């Protein structure tokens, strides 16, 4: 395959533009000493990561964030699936209105949404718990998951399911052999976005979690006080996102 000159220039340029902030971040995270006029760090070392894990509690925060992110993603897919199906196939008379109601939480500042939920969670005994944080995250995760999932429920999926019904497949066999494989790229995209939305929640976690650490919570204070620790934490923050992105990209390779 021959590549046009434009592509030969454009591709590396795009990579460079994307990589530049990341390079600075990496340099910052490993710069134990970096004096003002110098373009490059003076001394490299692990101080940022040591402090991040020993003093800031990045380990616990990472674990919390992963658990919360995975639970919120799984719940959003399961709860969002039937809603997306009904909306995607336009089975309801006021489809647009219901869609709008579902998307409404996205217009609210996260801290306010979390603040409102806290009142309620205290009465339900859900405050200061992982379950409470997962539910609070769902307020924002679920609309995104639904918006993406509903685009997958096309007329073609209906036709294939009909075919499978006549071929003798009950609902579970249809789900396993026809619907989920047909929607695989859509499910992957929805899962990726759901995870990323939960992963970067700050306000809701702060309001509901009663100080329970997640990565954004432990990272933010260091941005002003110790940029090296903040950069190290940012890299810890970034790694699972890239992993999720890679997994989703793999799942995208499916025709329909």
């Amino acid at each position, binding site marked *: 395959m021959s590549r046009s000159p434009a592509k030969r220039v454009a591709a590396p340029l795009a990579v460079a533009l994307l990589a530049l902030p990341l390079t600075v971040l990496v340099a910052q995270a490993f710069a134990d000493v970096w004096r003002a006029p110098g373009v490059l760090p003076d001394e490299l070392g692990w101080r940022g990561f040591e402090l991040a894990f020993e003093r800031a509690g990045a380990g616990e925060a990472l674990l919390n964030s992963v658990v919360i992110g995975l639970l919120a993603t799984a719940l959003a897919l399961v709860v969002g699936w039937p809603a997306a199906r009904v909306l995607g196939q336009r089975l309801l008379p006021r489809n647009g209105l219901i869609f709008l109601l579902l998307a409404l939480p996205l217009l609210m500042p996260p801290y306010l949404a979390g603040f409102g939920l806290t009142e309620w969670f205290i009465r339900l005994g859900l405050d200061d718990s992982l379950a409470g944080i997962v539910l609070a995250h769902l307020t924002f995760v679920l609309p995104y998951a639904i918006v993406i999932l509903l685009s997958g429920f096309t007329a073609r999926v209906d*036709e*294939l399911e009909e075919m499978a*019904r*006549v*071929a*003798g*497949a*009950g609902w579970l066999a249809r789900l396993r052999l026809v619907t989920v494989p*047909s929607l695989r790229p859509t499910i992957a995209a929805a899962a990726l976005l759901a995870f990323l939305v939960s992963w970067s929640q700050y306000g809701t976690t702060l309001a509901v979690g009663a100080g329970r650490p997640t990565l954004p919570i432990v990272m933010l204070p260091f941005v002003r006080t110790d940029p090296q620790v903040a950069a190290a934490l940012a890299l810890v923050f970034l790694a699972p996102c890239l992993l999720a992105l890679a997994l989703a990209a793999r799942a995208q390779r499916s025709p329909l």
Partner: protein
Amino acid sequence: MSAELRIEGLVVAPPGTTPVLRGVELAVPAGERAVLAGPSGAGKTTLLRAIAGLEDPAAGTIALGGSDQTGVPAHRRRMAMVFQDPRLLPHASVLDNIALPLRAAGVKRAERRRLAGEQLEEVGMAAFAERRVAGLSGGEAQRVALARALCAEPELLLLDEPLAALDPRRREALRRLIAELQERRSLTCLIVTHDRAEAAELGQSLALMIEGRIVQHDDPRTIFERPATRAVARFFGASNLLELPEHPGRVLAIRPEHVAIGSGTLRATVLESVYRGTQVALALDWQGRRIEALIDPADAPAAGATIAFELPAERLWAIPQTADERDLELRE
């Protein structure tokens, strides 16, 4: 294996619309290949979907081998269906597509692959087993869909315009294949088509559906030459429907190819003369009546000519005009 299909008083009326099926009566004996023909919108596909369990009837029964299927969910009916488009799973190989009914029935993998492989061979696609379905041509994909339907070992096979999307050469090959496989298993078979030539070629019996009812169900020759109503006559090309003073209360039907041109006592003016390759289509004016005829291009008169013609008595078929028929005519 094969079972009789008997449909009685079947009504399908989706909420908020006019009924699509309005009391369908149809019986297909075990092992017979019946064709359901009719104009677009007559309700043919809806009938097929109702038989398969994809539409809920408001009234009536669908009996397969004597047992009513109306309460049985689609996946438990011992039927298979080939849709107009092949509806293959894009994420699975050709062989896995064919094995879908076996997989749904819980057949073990090795057995599944063996049986699906046999079906694939029967439709002449053995070399395609491990291929993805994306690269298949329309004809190949429809063969795979046929193999998948047969893989379920159904008691009744439903085909919805299976040849519609194919070019003439592939259409002919697949038509032969369907007939051959059906006969080898003596499988009860109901095929929907809107094409009258295809209907005659495929059907051992032929049912014509108009506006949600079966108006005639007979062997192809009877349908073509002795239509029960004007609508049947018109659909199957007996386009000359004459009301003559000598035959009060009846309509005489004669096919264009049976009108004898160049001899006889009747005189007509040629209105149109259209060359159609193997034949010339004539439109004649006979005492204010329009008559259509087909003739060999070598003998074709030009437009404007006055010619002699004849309506051979043995080719004329008198359609009795019943109340039901008048009712149908009024609504058309």
